[in-house]
């Protein structure tokens, strides 16, 4: 198998496991990253099992408890409808984390597909596709997402009687997710450009490697080259790079809520709770404190874990 002989010190598809194990060992030694990971795990578990963890449902409340401070029954207090803040925070984690994860995933899928195609086919295809990316790079993301969100919300999240077809299907998804769906879509559609560039760059460098050239020379089919050589080399770093973007997507959701393009109440999200709460800061501090803390702690944990993962996968940084 001479054509797959790895060069010295080069990471190839042949030894992903040992590399991963190596990285994992380095990661586990990083206490900050481990702590971040542990916190995230708790939050994710709470979000997934919200139905069992949360003491109340998201709509359950007594209006007489409106804006009530912490008590035995409601340890984090109540919101304007007398609904339990803790429960809404736990259920809100679902939306905010999904906004981060699914937004990142959407961007990942689009970006990787785009980058793979451009990098792998090269030539004219590559040229046209990357010019398109360049153009979209100059597009003010903010404006694009506001226009897109307004457009989506007007076209698909419409009233009353269910409709058929594509429009109806999208509208039903949107309703089922409390308006989340379009947030994910909007975030994803405006955030894939960096990923596309990164992946294309990696594909090009992998394609240039001797063993890939060799594989091609002996007539290995394209699909097999893609599967055996390109994908394994590209996916790992791409996943890491995209995971590092997740905190940004969580903040993005908060920002969209602030400008009125967030989830539909009464569905809670951290961003929605935050933008409901900041107005009341000096009167009902708990309304802003908990969602802000939830976002901050999550981002903190993500960032420490992210830095740890990056250090772990890039061993040069820890050597001195």
């Amino acid at each position, binding site marked *: 198998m001479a054509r797959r002989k790895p060069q010295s010190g080069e990471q190839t598809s042949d030894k992903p496991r040992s590399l991963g194990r190596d990285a994992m060992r380095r990661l586990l030694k990083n206490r*900050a990253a481990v702590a971040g990971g542990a916190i995230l795990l708790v939050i994710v578990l709470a979000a997934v099992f919200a139905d069992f963890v949360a003491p109340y449902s998201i709509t359950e409340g007594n209006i007489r408890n409106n804006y009530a401070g912490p008590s035995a029954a409601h340890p984090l207090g109540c919101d304007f409808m007398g609904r339990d803040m803790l429960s809404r925070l736990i259920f809100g984690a679902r939306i905010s984390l999904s906004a981060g994860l699914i937004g990142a995933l959407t961007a990942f899928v689009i970006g990787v597909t785009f980058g793979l195609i451009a990098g792998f086919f090269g030539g004219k295809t590559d040229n046209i596709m990357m*010019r398109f990316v*360049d*153009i979209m*790079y*100059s*597009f*003010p*993301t*903010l*404006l*694009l997402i*506001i*226009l*897109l969100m*307004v*457009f989506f919300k*007007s076209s698909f999240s419409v009233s009353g009687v269910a409709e058929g077809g594509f429009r109806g299907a999208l509208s039903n998804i949107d309703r089922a997710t409390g308006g989340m769906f379009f947030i994910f879509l909007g975030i994803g559609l405006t955030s894939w450009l960096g990923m596309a560039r990164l992946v294309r760059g990696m594909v090009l460098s992998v394609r240039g490697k001797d063993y890939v050239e060799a594989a091609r020379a002996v007539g290995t089919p394209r699909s097999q080259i893609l599967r055996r050589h390109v994908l394994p080399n590209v996916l790992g770093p791409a996943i890491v790079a995209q995971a590092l973007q997740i*905190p940004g997507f969580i*903040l993005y959701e*908060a*920002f969209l809520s*602030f*400008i009125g393009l967030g989830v539909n109440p009464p569905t809670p999200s951290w961003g929605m709770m*935050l*933008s409901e*709460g*900041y107005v009341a*800061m*000096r009167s009902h501090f708990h309304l*802003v404190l908990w969602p*802000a803390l939830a*976002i*901050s*702690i999550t*981002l*903190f944990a993500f*960032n*420490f874990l992210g*830095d740890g993962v990056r250090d772990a996968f890039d061993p*040069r*940084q820890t*050597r*001195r």
Partner: protein
Amino acid sequence: MFQFILRRMLWTIPVIFVVSALTFILMHSVPGSPFTRERALPAAIQKNLEAKYHLDDPLWKQYGEYMWGFIRLDFGPSIAYRARTVNEILAQQWPVTMTLGAVAFVFAACLGIPLGILSAVKQNTLIDHSSMVVAMLGVSIPSIALGPFLIWIFALKLKWLPVATWGTPAHIILPALTLSTFYLSRFARITRASMLQVTREEYIVTARAKGIRESVVNLKHAFRNALIPVTTIAGPAFADILTGSLVVEQIFGIPGIGKYYVTSIGNRDYPVIMATTLIFALLIILMNLLVDISYALLDPRIRYN
């Protein structure tokens, strides 16, 4: 180098064409018109208004006329603010946002870069960790909560600074601080990472081996090269100024351009939407070009072909 710049400049033409066409199509596919009112306007009045702003022309003609005006730097009238042209809005509101962004950027650089250097030099010590915690605090606290909180503490409790609005240097501090936290952490972390990387490069090792004092090595050699990644974030950070400034301008009542991004879409103020998009696209292109040029100046190893 010159050829490179020229080529990049020519490239802006198709970019502007595509961005403008996309924006135009998108904004006209959103329901509602600039004259959608809760008290529905009679058809005759609608007709007068549409005639005044040429909204009764076919779309391709409107687009063509807009672009013809754009080329001559005439961005048309604002429909929502009837005595103001888009040129005036840009001339009056852009500088405010740019000032705010620039001050925030300087705040971030002045605090973030030293923080990054410090934590790189003292890698894996308590100083390193606490610096990074401080840096990450910035990126983790949403400005929607931070802004009102700063107002509460510094304007209402301590009475050191004005609550909001624009005008004197004192008015800039709180909003710029709110806006800067995000870049601060980016600056700190990227400076740290690139410092660590650079200090392992051979010429630094050589310098050290030659017995040059550690502090001199750190500052002179490492810092200069660490600037490259920092310049890299300057471009995207510029774009983020706008996203961030929207929140900050809203909370602090600042007369910047950020709010127009939301209100112009709400008002269906087509000329304002087009102009802000296109000008912003142009600025992004310009910033990226500047970043690339500064690469060349900072690192002679980078060549353009």
